[in-house]
């Protein structure tokens, strides 16, 4: 399971930087907003601007750049596939090479480059969000962002509770998966070897105990929650209160400036 541990996605690295201290609501919304404004960029100056801005944010977080590069790695094939499609199937501008329906044109190369930049920027920004925000803060942020949807009878508290419980149990379940895998390996199971059907069959001794344990755990957790007086989300007070501070307004202002510059560069 050491493979799983190498996954950077969704991991939080404790720290105390400007970015770490930002309000998670702001961070979450700005991350989405950033993905939106990336599509405003369509020349090299605007991409350069976004790149510099992203690098600035990454440096401010004081998290090792290696983490971000590692975040790109699992998606590298998807990125390359998209970029190559763009390069070979876009016509226009100066034509460098062609063979049947495949062409390499000036526009294709430029578009391929832009798409590559877009992917990298989006991944960097979302990695920045997850690396600098503890999962529980994220679920608080989701709860408070969803609150307006209560008018449409969206069960906001329940969704937030499920998200925070799910986030809490991800590492526990990963540990447990590893333990059961090892226990079954010790009983002679070969995971990930043999034909496809053998591989599938080897998963059963892992999946069934995981499900059974999850059911047991859910039951225990529900009992423990009821014993502590949980009666649903309505009328509860909050222990962790999110506060909007000056620095959050500053971050929003920075994004507004970037948006303005992007529109001006178009």
């Amino acid at each position, binding site marked *: 399971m*050491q493979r799983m541990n190498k996954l950077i996605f969704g991991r939080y690295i404790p720290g105390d930087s400007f970015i770490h201290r930002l309000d998670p609501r702001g961070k979450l919304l700005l991350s989405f907003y950033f993905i939106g404004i990336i599509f405003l960029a369509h020349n090299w100056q605007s991409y350069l601007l976004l790149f510099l801005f992203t690098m600035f944010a990454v440096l401010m977080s004081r998290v090792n750049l290696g983490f971000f590069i590692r975040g790109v790695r699992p998606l590298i094939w998807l990125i390359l596939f998209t970029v190559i499609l763009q390069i070979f199937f876009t016509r226009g501008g100066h034509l460098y090479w062609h063979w049947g329906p495949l062409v390499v044109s000036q526009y294709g190369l430029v578009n391929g480059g832009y798409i590559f930049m877009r992917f990298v920027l989006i991944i960097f920004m979302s990695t920045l969000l997850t690396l600098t925000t503890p999962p529980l803060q994220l679920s608080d942020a989701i709860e408070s962002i969803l609150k307006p949807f209560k008018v449409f009878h969206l069960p906001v508290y329940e969704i937030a509770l499920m998200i925070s419980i799910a986030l809490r149990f991800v590492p526990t379940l990963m540990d447990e998966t590893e*333990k*059961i895998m*090892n226990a079954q390996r010790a009983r002679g*199971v070969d995971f990930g070897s043999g034909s496809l059907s053998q591989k599938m069959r080897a998963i059963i001794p892992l999946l069934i105990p995981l499900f059974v344990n999850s059911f047991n755990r859910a039951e225990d957790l529900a009992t423990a929650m009821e014993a502590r007086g949980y009666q649903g989300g309505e009328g509860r007070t909050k222990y962790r209160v999110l506060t909007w501070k000056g620095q959050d307004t500053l971050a929003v202002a920075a994004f507004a400036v970037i948006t303005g510059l992007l529109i001006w560069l178009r």
Partner: protein
Amino acid sequence: MDITFKDVAFTYQAGSPFASDALTDINLTIHDQAFTAIIGHTGSGKSTLVQHLNALLKPSAGTVTIGERVITPETDNKNLKPIRQKVGMVFQFPENQLFEETVAKDIAFGPMNFGVSEADALQRATEMVQLVGLDTQYLERSPFDLSGGQMRRVAIAGVLAMKPEVLILDEPTAGLDPVGRREILGMVERLHREQHLTVVLITHLMEDVAAYADQVVVMDRGQVAKTGTPQAVFQDVAWLQSHQLGVPETALFAEKLKQRGFQFEQLPLTEAALAAALAPQLPLTKRGATDE
């Protein structure tokens, strides 16, 4: 089958920013047919150490020799199955590994993975379920209908059914009641004595170490701090306590008696040994005098 560690080190997630050293400079031999107890504070590397005994983990440096096989950092993950049959491992809370529809099938699962025919494996299941102290009527029940203690016995039976030469138990009695604890350890001790099974036991219960083990390995912060017989290791009460380890109650009591003037060549570790050491020292005549 001896298991020898030579200059073994192990690092979790080596080469990543989350790397952490779990073991350093381990030199150790688990002797054939011995009963070895591994003790140490939580997080001292006991569980990491025992996972090297059947090559679930490979050392980051050094070599582990399991019988004929030498495991090095470069060892391929293939062909490790024969080791895992010879070295049976019972993990902490082994009831979490049960998955089959019936107890019989679950116990037969291990042997069948090692090429034993279904009929033979089910035959073994019948033997093993009795060996761990359950009635054969349990064979057709679902493992999920059983109590926690019974599930644990079934899980242990599933490991024993592979007929290992070495049996590793990682806190087999955690969370059991005193009766269940005594029964499971009694069973392990019987297997050790009658079938000459090499046993490696991780435990926090020093009474069990004193009662059953031939050899004790004390782990501290990923290193072997001490090895020796239980007698030798438990003599130095202050050293053990400074390493956040317990001492058998009997030894503590004997230590107090010592301060009141009783003489012991060595601190007795079991009640029987204490009684034997005390009997000649008791001033029976004097007691008669004070009674007047």
